[in-house]
């Protein structure tokens, strides 16, 4: 039997992020990914979840100076995406369960690659 996939995107404010993720977790969704998009002056962070092929996406839009709370206390496996978000985009994430402090993605080039933060703070989690 074919299951129809649904995708929803819900905007969340930074101060509500943890509460909304806890709600999604309580509803039985699994964490699919956390991805970041550089909008040139701000960032869009997508927290994607899935339950029975129903795809729910919490969308956070933040400025270049914002610190994002880790959701690794709710979804243990979030640390890979949060370290990646920090290393590739320079977004400081506070309270990651396994914090590599900028060394998760090992590259010759200094992180972050982000255009928005280029030339500034090299590693906010360090």
């Amino acid at each position, binding site marked *: *039997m*074919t*299951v*129809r*996939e649904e*995708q929803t995107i819900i905007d969340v404010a930074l101060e509500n992020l943890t509460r909304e993720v806890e709600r999604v977790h309580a509803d039985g969704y*699994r*964490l*699919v*990914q956390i*991805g*970041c*998009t*550089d909008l040139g002056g701000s960032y869009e962070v*997508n927290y*994607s979840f899935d339950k029975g*092929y129903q*795809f729910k*996406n919490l969308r956070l839009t933040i400025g270049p100076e914002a610190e994002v709370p880790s959701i690794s206390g709710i*979804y*243990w*496996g979030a*640390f*890979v*995406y949060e370290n*990646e978000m920090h*290393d590739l985009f320079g977004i400081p994430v506070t309270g990651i369960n*396994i914090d*590599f402090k900028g*060394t*998760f*993605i*090992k*590259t010759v080039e200094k992180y972050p*690659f982000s255009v928005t933060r280029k030339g500034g703070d090299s590693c906010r989690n360090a």
Partner: protein
Amino acid sequence: MPERIVVPFGPQHPVLPEPIHLDLVLEDETVVEAIPSIGYIHRGLERLIEKREFTEYVYVAERICGICSFMHALCYCQGIEEIMKIEVPDRAKYLRTIWSECSRLHSHLLWLGLFADGMGFENLFMRSWQLRESVLDVLEDTTGGRVIQGTCKVGGVRRDIGAEKLDEMHRALDPFEEQCRELGDIFLNDDTVKYRLQGLGVISKDEAYALGAVGPTARASGVAMDHRETGYAAYGDLGFKPVVETAGDCYARCAVRVKEIYASINLIRQAIDQMPEGPLDVKVKGTPDGEYFSRVEQPRGEVIHYLKGNGSKHLSRARIRTPTLANIPPLVKMLPGAQLADVPVVVLSIDPCISCTER
């Protein structure tokens, strides 16, 4: 209390064709903690989207990985087609399904060989790769490429498989399945294999789900999740059911892949039987304006291509989440309790593809 020592595993290791590193914290020879790190070969392919037109990026997507190359192209193309509301012809969907399942077949046979090699079962390794060669021959014969097929494009496919060739493939499936079942019988029933794998690297159903495991890693723990159930390409017409095991150990992960080989052969057989006539592609007009999270079931699990277009010929963002990245947290939870000598087998059991992870 035994003294704790840290043993570095990788990035260069005989069982790892690609670099990944684990800091293994040991008490005597027992792993108590594993800390992963990646990024040795990060290529920044996502950023290339800013320099390639949306139709050209298919070539980049296909080069993310040398094993599931076709499926990366498929996932990307399906995402663009969804944004642009392009209806792909049925024949193209069936051809995409055949090439996807050929990719899964050769990926699983490749993994079985590597896994056998990791266990020290050399002739089983050679037999697995011998069978894999015949799948690569079919890919080369039908697409022109063993590793990079180059047949998937936005709006359909570039090449057809003629009736004579389809008939030849169909006739070859029965003897090929028989050989695969002989091989699978060793992986599933040999005492040496069972002794080495059963009870090793166990992860429960609840843990697998909570940690975001995907693909055979999740299904071996009883999570019945396979994106082919959503019916993309021609899967909706082919009566597909996911292969699920429940033990959650290395043996179960091996068993899922062995049984998925049989399932893939059956899917190819059905796709050939039901192959519709018609065009291979549709003309693509306009540029993508919108966003979509495209998902496809690769051999290692669900891959995601998040694509965002702004109405220009260049997408503003492509974000690719590969299955191995999702399976790293489960791997970290599988390792504690394992003996140092078993670490290579446990690591291999998630079928890590670092090339994908380091897109």
